[in-house]
């Protein structure tokens, strides 16, 4: 790609070593987030989206760990950094927004202080007054009305949308290069969702930052993403710019996901789904992980994992169906 990659994940393997065996939650993921672009990572629950994000932030808890691979932020390798070094990067160069604005703020601390803390931890403000001023500024930027007054509010005094704005302010206050948003709008209603998405798009443009947005909502993807990665069972199965993906989807899983969006005017009695569930990651065979649910699966699919084939410019797909076309 022409643009410089802010985040470069190469062959990332994150596994959980449980009593029942090894769960390969992230199994060889390659992912790029270029500067100034919004990249979507989509997939069903349990397919490894969040674990990919957590690997970047160093939030993988025991018994899980990053087995191998490389995560480069702005050219700097993050895998293998000590906890202390990683803490100095997180919040400063890369920060994360969590899914639940209800629980991601500390209920006993005033929201203003929680945002100020980020500044103080990263030495972006030398005095409390400066931190306060910058925080009020940030509150106004993310559209929190009466910012000064809201500074001394406790999280339970704010609505869900406002809390998510506070979270965004918290993530943005150090002006990170990369923002990771883990289902930022799942807990919000649709009008607030639209506002928050617009806000993120605007911030992305203004700061020329990269955003990695994790979602299972293809509406969100269509709304704001530039590039999309579709993830299934720990692997990237399809990757394309957003219009290319919606117009020329190649992978049967992507197709299934799109068909599963309820449409107005469709048959109201029948909701299209993908048969089956995500395979238990404890027991995956050699074949394509999607083969068990795929209408086009052949014997080859069940025996061998397809590689990522390039089907068009910037469009790759992990499916043998695409292999023929790609050649």
């Amino acid at each position: 790609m022409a643009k410089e990659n802010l985040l470069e994940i190469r062959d990332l393997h994150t596994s959980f070593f449980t009593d029942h065996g090894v769960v390969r939650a992230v199994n060889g993921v390659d992912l790029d987030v270029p500067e100034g672009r919004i990249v979507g990572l989509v997939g069903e629950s349990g397919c490894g989206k969040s674990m990919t994000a957590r690997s970047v932030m160093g939030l993988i808890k025991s018994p899980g760990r990053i087995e191998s691979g490389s995560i480069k932020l702005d050219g700097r390798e993050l895998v293998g950094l000590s906890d202390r070094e990683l803490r100095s990067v997180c919040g400063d160069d890369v920060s994360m927004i969590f899914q639940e604005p209800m629980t991601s703020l500390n209920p006993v601390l005033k929201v203003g202080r929680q945002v100020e803390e980020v500044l103080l931890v990263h030495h972006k403000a030398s005095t409390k007054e400066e931190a306060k001023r910058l925080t009020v500024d940030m509150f106004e930027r993310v559209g929190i009305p009466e910012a000064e007054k809201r500074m001394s509010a406790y999280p339970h005094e704010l609505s869900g949308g406002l809390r998510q704005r506070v979270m965004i302010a918290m993530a943005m206050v150090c002006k990170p290069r990369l923002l990771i948003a883990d289902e930022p709008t799942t807990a919000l209603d649709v009008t607030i969702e639209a506002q928050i998405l617009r806000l993120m798009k605007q911030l992305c443009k203004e700061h020329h930052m990269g955003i990695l947005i994790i979602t299972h909502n293809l509406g969100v993807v269509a709304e704001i993403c530039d590039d999309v990665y579709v993830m299934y069972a720990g692997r990237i199965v399809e990757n394309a710019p957003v219009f290319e993906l919606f117009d020329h989807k190649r992978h049967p899983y992507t197709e299934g996901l799109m068909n599963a969006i309820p449409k107005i005017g469709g048959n109201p009695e029948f909701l299209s789904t993908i048969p089956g569930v995500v395979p238990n990651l404890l027991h995956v065979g050699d074949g394509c992980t999607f083969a068990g649910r795929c209408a086009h699966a052949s014997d080859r699919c069940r025996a061998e994992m397809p590689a990522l084939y390039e089907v068009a410019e910037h469009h790759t797909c992990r499916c043998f169906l695409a292999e023929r076309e790609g050649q």
Partner: protein
Amino acid sequence: MEKKTKQTGIQSEAHASDIGEKYGWKEMLHQMWKQNPLAILSAVLIIAIIAAAVFAPVIAPYKEAQQDLTARLQGPGMKHLLGTDELGRDVLTRILFGARVSLVVGIIPSVISLIIGLILGMIAGYFGGAVDYLLMRLVDIMLAFPSLLLSMVIMYTLGRYANSVICIFAALSITGWASVARVVRSQTLSLKESVYVEAARSIGVGKFRIMFRHIFPNCIPSLIVLFTLNVPSCILSESTLSFLGIGVQPPAASWGLMVNQSKQFLFGMPWLALAPSITIMIVVLAFNFLGDGLRDILDPYMQTR
């Protein structure tokens, strides 16, 4: 009151949610009085007892150890409101002076054991693993060992080197921290899994800062409850130790000591034992009610503030 918000860049569409007007402390007291008058009464009572202890030499009708051998074992009357003991000392005076010992012995060891328990509990809960295992086994040992026996051992060993009140501090602090540590640990365990601790980690907040800025404030409601339960139990322990004759040494006055000394007259002159016993009971109850009330106001999850 609606102030126009300065809007730079991003249009603000979010509706302002109502921030309830913050109560001043007067309204808070009023609110509390309506909800829990017992807690206010208890607070007033505790303040009164503290004042009485501080000003004991001024308000007490007699001197602490003043004996009047011609008026021994008197019943309650005009001259001695609560009667006199076997050495002719005024019981009311001795209860007032005893409040000094009992309150200090109740509060200081509670604070010490709270601090020790808080720190060790947070460390055990947050770091987990071997640290947690070792600390919790230590807690198990402390909890399994009869605390009265341990206090007695400490009193005997330290008694040679230090003042008896200091020994009581040590004995009660050492026996009291374990239960605090256990409660704090279990809270820390659940708090460290919470999303906001994860969020704090994700923005680069260090371990100790998380412990003290994010976990500690969330423990405060239970710490207050623990404190208000710990104070009366320390007062009771001191009374027990003094009753057994290894606590505060005569001629100093302490409620437990007074019960001890009056036990031989329990059938003939029950008021001698009843006066300090009822005092202990009232103070212990007052602390418990106050703790209850405080927890109700300070709990951030309750919105009835």
